[in-house]
């Protein structure tokens, strides 16, 4: 690991100020990803600003029926919080589908959103990767890409966003609250938080350098009764998704009022299918309806050499997740 300066932040604003002032500085929260990447020489910050003493771990009911979760609340505490379990079981399921118990005990919600791709070319500094070093090329484009994107990729990058939590947050239409230098605060809808790679694969998300996630705001949700997070992976636990689905239904008897379908493991960001959602809306909750929606969701997929299976798997996973959400399976 390269030498770096360690700074402990005492306030949100001072943290944002220090990182804003230093283009090579990064925030440190749970450290479950950035410390790994620094050991692998993938991340090379010259300064880490430790956020862990900031008071940003609260989970509380918000006016209007939503819940605000602090950026520094641990994944484990978030998943187990009664307000989350009761109102957003989809989020609980998604969090516990990720990583291992030990990692979830360390990882924070803000850090979870900031985790970087697990693309093997990104991790190996001997190989080309535009995300790690722009201009070197994409090793995975014509390399081993079984775990890579089928949506929204570019010639520059075919990596996927690896997280689970954000997929559920997207289905729940969460908003990310951030605070930057000069005490500028803004909110970013979770769907606009992560980016597609385009020509700037080095950017995972739309945060400005120095902007700090302070909270995630969840609006009041009609989906608590009928939601399901499905993660398909190569082993039963502790593996990243081949395909994941965050499915949520608002049912009126057997009819779908509204639906949310977000895929994970298929793109550089959580991949929401509005086509699937509108195809579900107003229809009876049935396997046939779900199959039609699944076809639409994967219709525009562009698989690579080794991941065509994700198209079929994605469809089947959507059907299964919706079946579970509607308690038909």
């Amino acid at each position, binding site marked *: *690991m*390269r*030498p770096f300066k360690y700074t402990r932040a005492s306030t949100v604003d001072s943290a944002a100020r220090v990182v804003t002032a230093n283009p090579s500085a990064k925030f440190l929260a749970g450290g479950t990803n950035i410390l790994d990447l620094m050991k692998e*020489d993938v991340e090379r910050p010259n300064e880490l600003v430790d956020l862990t003493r900031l008071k940003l771990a609260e989970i509380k009911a918000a006016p209007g029926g939503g819940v605000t979760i602090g950026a520094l609340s641990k994944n484990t505490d978030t998943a187990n919080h009664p307000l989350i379990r009761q109102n957003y079981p989809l989020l609980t399921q998604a969090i516990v589908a990720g990583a291992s118990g030990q990692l979830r005990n360390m990882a924070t919600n803000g850090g979870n959103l900031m985790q970087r791709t*697990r693309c*093997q*070319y990104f*991790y*190996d500094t*001997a*190989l080309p990767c535009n995300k790690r070093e722009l201009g070197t090329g994409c*090793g995975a484009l*014509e*390399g*081993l890409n*079984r775990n890579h994107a089928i949506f929204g990729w570019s010639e520059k990058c075919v990596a996927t966003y690896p997280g689970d939590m954000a997929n559920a947050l997207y289905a729940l239409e969460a908003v990310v609250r951030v605070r930057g230098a000069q005490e500028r605060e803004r909110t970013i809808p979770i769907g606009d938080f992560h980016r597609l790679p385009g020509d700037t694969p080095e950017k995972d998300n739309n945060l400005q350098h120095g902007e700090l996630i302070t909270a995630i705001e969840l609006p009041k949700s009609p989906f608590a009764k009928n939601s399901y997070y499905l993660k*398909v*992976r*190569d*082993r*039963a*636990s*502790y*593996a*990243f998704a*081949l395909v994941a689905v965050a499915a949520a239904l608002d049912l009126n008897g057997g009819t779908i009022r509204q639906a949310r379908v977000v895929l994970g493991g298929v793109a550089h960001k959580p991949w929401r299918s509005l086509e699937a959602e509108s195809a579900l809306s107003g229809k009876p909750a049935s396997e046939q309806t779900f199959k039609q929606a699944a076809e639409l969701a994967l219709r525009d997929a562009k698989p690579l050499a080794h991941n065509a*299976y994700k198209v*079929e*798997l994605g469809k*089947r*996973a959507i*059907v*299964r997740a919706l079946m579970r959400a509607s308690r038909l*399976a």
Partner: protein
Amino acid sequence: MARYIGKEMSRVDGVAKVTGRAKYAAEFRVPNLAYGFIVLGSVAKGTIKAIDTREAESSQGVVRVFTHLNSPKLGPKASTEYAPPRNAREQDKSFRALQSDRIYFNAQPVALVVAETYEQARYAARLVKVSYNAEKHSTDTEAVRAQARVPSQGPPPKPRGNPEEAMKSAPVRVEAEYRIPIEHHNPMEPHAAVAVWEGDRLTIFDKTQEVYGVRRHLASSFNVPEENVQVISPYVGGAFGSSLRPNYYPSLTAMAARELKRPIKVVYTRTQMFTGHGHRPYTIQKIALGAEASGKLTAMIHEAVHNTSTFEEFSDNTTGFTRQVYACPNLYAPTKITDTDLNTPTWMRAPGAVSGMFALECAMDELAYSLKIDPLELRLINYAEVDPESGKPFSSKALRECYRLGAEKFGWKNRKFEPRSMRDGRLLVGWGTATGVWGAFQSPASAKITFRGEGTAHVTSATSDIGPGTYTVVTMIAAEYLGLTPDRVQFELGDTKFPRAPAQGGSQTTASVGSAVHGAALAVTSRLFALANQDANSPLKGAAASDVEMLDGRLRLKNDPSRFVQIAEVMRRNNLTEIAETFESKPSEERRKYATLAHGAQFIEVKVDPDLGQVRVTRAIEVSACGKIINPKASHSQEIGGVVWGIGMALTEATEIDHRYGRIMNPNLQHYHVPVNADVHEVETLFVEEDDQIVNPLGVKGMGELGMVGIPAAIANAVFHATGRRIRELPITPDKLL
């Protein structure tokens, strides 16, 4: 009546391990230690054009940067037990670091940065700049399959009978190709060495399965007498074959320590482990079985091709056990190798056997379905009553009882023959079976017992305990035959100051070292008996040494315990405080008249999600017949571990290479998927004990490898039964079942 042998005993080293008192190679502290960090190359073949170490050398704390330009040349390598070719006069050709500018494989070590701290060394390692003259490489076994050849060492494969003709005329035939990827051992403990020179004497703490092998290797590397090298390795945190051969790091560490005249420690990172030792090779197997309509095999042709390196030949003898499993008059079963620009493969748990039996036992299942005969029944029809290869009788073989017991426990009779015929709700249920086989190996081994008058014993032998429970089993054997309680026995291993023992490989340790300890205990008994009988009034007069036994401080007649002497008294009378006996045991002549194998039967239930392709091994019944079971507790642990390994091989494990770069792409535990707890469900292991008077004095056979041999095939067969899909390429990941 045995007091300890055959009864459950917890590990004698368990408390030391869980409290951290047990020291592994990297944990030994020596004064003035410096730390080495290995720099890995980034091309698969070629030469180093230039290497710039200036920035690294001027980095804080750096003592020296070793490259091929400033590293001394090491002496020729003596071959060791597990350094092929296994002919002691031949030179070991395994890779050694920093000996030339030549690159043989990607992620080969190209420099060693030594610094005052580990962190300083690791950081400076990033600052070493290397450029290469890359050459066209070849790392894909499929692409060089046509160049496969029979290894130059060992006897050429000889057909039995007339397999080609018999195959042509067989009424029923199946033929298929099977593939397994490269796999890596991934023991928990990373490989490490701490080297300390005092003049021309070297002490090295190493993670190894054979201290004497490392000693021989280092003595020849540094041109010092073997007696000058002490190798210490009291605990090994798993190895599975990855430490059978001296890997490149012990000589690299000792070289740096010698040059710098100070102790050096080198520890592999997880990533470095993927090229720092060998791997289970990529293996392509073509197999054809011919049978009569009754199911009787008439011809077997089993051809395996796997990769080796460009600089040495390695063969895991993939097809070896095919010759001995089923009675069949016509057979051809060669194993061939082909060169790739990868490090040399090596033995990995159940080497050859699990690969070969994956293909053979899947092919047997395919044949069963062609014949419409129950897969278990087909195996019984072709049961080998004598060794089909040599015609010799088996020293013991309770495989039939394994089949019977396993089938009964599993409920095999309730199996419906047709694929996709059993369900659990949405899930497809599949039941599969396979046979396991392994050798009952024994090598010469020595042990020393120092029996003290106060009724304690100190036992030593330079074996290792990579996890099977050798500390415990040897303690039990010594306690049994010295008539002591186990807490009065202290056993030490893993040090070249102790009597010579073979590598802990091939599941031969209890047979080899256990026999030596047994022999040494009998030697102590004989000695005491002779001393006792110097007294004209000895109550043991007239008996033979073999008629007496030691128990609870007495030397007594086995068939009349009222005739005894007090051991302490005999020793006192002879002015002895202790008796020391060293014994070397060797395989008996009698063994040669027999085929000696261990067998097993495995029954697997899988549940497959037909939509998502996910396979869960919900039930495993594994029955093993491997002679006498000395410590049932550790033995069950071994076999459970074997099942888990089999699950990993069948469903999750694969080392992936991007052949454009010839580079391993998943050298870490996030991308290389060993099974996790959630992948392992009900596992039941059973033993059918064999009373084998031939194999060795203790009647034990190997079990550590046996436990996994049939599992991948049984899982693949169960997946076929569940889904109707025959997956012939491991691992069986969800995408293959969509």
